[in-house]
């Protein structure tokens, strides 16, 4: 067990080091959500004037949505490092060592979760600077972070599974974009659900991205609706476990195909 934990930490450390060495990557990952926040904050500002919009201001409403969307978008890239490692032979080099196989997966996932957390905190901070407020308090912010990290871990696992199956950077990126963007717009990230067409409301109801956004919107409420939150967090946890299981299956399939 301790060997597995040590291996996992070593793998996390490897990704973290590579991240810190790439200034443009850092700027891209951290600045991009800032652009979303400011751009959409301006573009959809008049949404707040529509009857039926209940939040105090659009930026207050938008900030949790951008937190969730950014987590999903950046986690979707997770598999690209697997593709590079497979192409470079690094994966096979690891596999001929006695490294715990699970650590290769968990180490990367911990790194992704850390990135999602860091990115989320930056967005929340910037949102606050431009006027977003979180009347739900610390508890609601922590719930937002938990939901976001779960969703990020789910999409990172899914991306890893696709990477291990497709083994092509182009295919992975194309699939990633065609999955994450529609899911974002089929959620209440930018618009309250009650302003959506009816069929979209139905889709949003089953959209895990929307679950995370809705948990995040507890930051707007004076008090946390625990039952509402519990159902959605349970759904997100289930999704994360299913995706993690998929990535383990894909990893085994890769090992068999070598």
């Amino acid at each position, binding site marked *: 067990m301790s060997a597995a934990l040590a*291996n996992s930490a*070593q793998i996390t450390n*490897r990704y973290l080091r*590579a991240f810190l060495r*790439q200034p443009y990557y850092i700027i891209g990952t951290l600045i991009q959500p800032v652009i979303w926040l400011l751009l959409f904050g301006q573009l959809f500002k008049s949404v707040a004037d529509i009857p039926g919009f209940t939040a105090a201001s659009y930026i207050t409403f938008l900030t949790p949505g951008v937190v969730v969307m950014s987590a999903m978008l950046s986690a979707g890239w997770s598999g690209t490092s697997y593709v590079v490692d497979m192409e470079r*032979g690094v994966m*096979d080099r690891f596999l*001929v060592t*006695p490294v715990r196989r699970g650590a290769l997966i968990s180490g990367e996932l911990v790194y992704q979760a850390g990135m999602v957390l860091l990115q989320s905190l930056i967005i929340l901070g910037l949102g606050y600077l431009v006027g977003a407020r979180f009347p739900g308090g610390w508890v609601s912010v922590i719930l937002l972070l938990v939901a976001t990290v779960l969703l990020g871990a789910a999409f990172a696992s899914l991306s890893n599974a696709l990477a291990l199956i497709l083994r092509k950077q182009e295919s992975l990126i194309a699939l990633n974009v065609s999955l994450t963007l529609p899911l974002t717009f089929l959620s209440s990230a930018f618009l309250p659900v009650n302003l959506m067409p009816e069929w979209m409301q139905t889709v949003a109801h089953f959209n895990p991205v929307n679950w995370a956004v809705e948990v995040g919107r507890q930051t707007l409420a004076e008090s946390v609706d625990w039952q509402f939150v519990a159902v959605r967090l349970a759904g997100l946890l289930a999704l994360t476990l299913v995706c993690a299981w998929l990535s383990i299956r894909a990893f085994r399939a890769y090992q068999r195909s*070598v």
Partner: protein
Amino acid sequence: MTIHPARAPGAIATISRPAVEATGLVKTYPGNVQALKGVSFSVESGAVFALLGPNGAGKSTIVKILTTLSRPNSGRASIAGHDVVREPDRVRRLIGVVGQKSAVDLEATTGENLRLQGQLYGLSGGELRRRVSRLLERFNLAEARKRIARTLSGGMQRKLDVAMGLIHQPQVLFLDEPTTGLDPEARADMWREIARLAREDGLTVLLTTHYLEEADHLAQRVAIIDHGQIVVEGTPDGLKAELRGDAIQVELAGATSDASIRAALGGLDGSLREVVIEGRSLRARVDSGASALPSVLAALDAASIRVSTATVARPSLDDVYLRHTGRAYAEAENKEKIR
């Protein structure tokens, strides 16, 4: 030139148990591609053993099975007596593997690459630091310790690959085409290093290559593999001796038909073996090149076939390879036609 490394003193005790043993390995990939059709060989402890063959012959598949990456469909393999399928973790601690492509993490420094590799084997603290430093010194990478691997030359990356394969002090080192893509200088450098590993460290080395001179230069034993089968195995000298005789090669000055060349040489029947005519070049095997060449030249001259150059060569591993794989190719083609 063939190097015969002196065996390390410690290796004598374990000589009864082969360092590597493969028996009847069969590997079929999806789509019914038979990569291996029953491969058996063994490598004695402390020896350098070369698997020689063209690309796609099955060399890398053998290495993948022996290094626990891949499982055979049938057959068995063991490292120092430990089965690669049933005791993979045990085997992994006994072997070092340097893959066909450089598997250096390009975003990490030379030192970080080595450290992580050691950590994956459970090394840590002062012991890990000492081993990293020692290997950096040994492979002349000490000054490149803090350089990002992306900025290293191909030869340096390859040395880092080998250094990583040695961090846990394995007993058997697998080198899958260690010099493919290296310039001649870096290749000579790598050859010296490989010879030294066997000579000074008593390491068993299994290398795959499609360079004949590499196998000839480094290995005590060579197995030639083609179409997933070992076609011949032996010492480089033994394989060459089997060929009996010299190779003569004659380049003709003008285009001449096969038939007229064969007719001209008709009188020499018996003394020429394995006559091959390809365009303007004529190759044959003779017992003694020095005595046969004048009569070949005279016969061609008598038939008014003009010659531009003529050479005599002692048999090389090249000839062994051509002869054995040539026959295998012909057989494979025949089978294809019958089907």
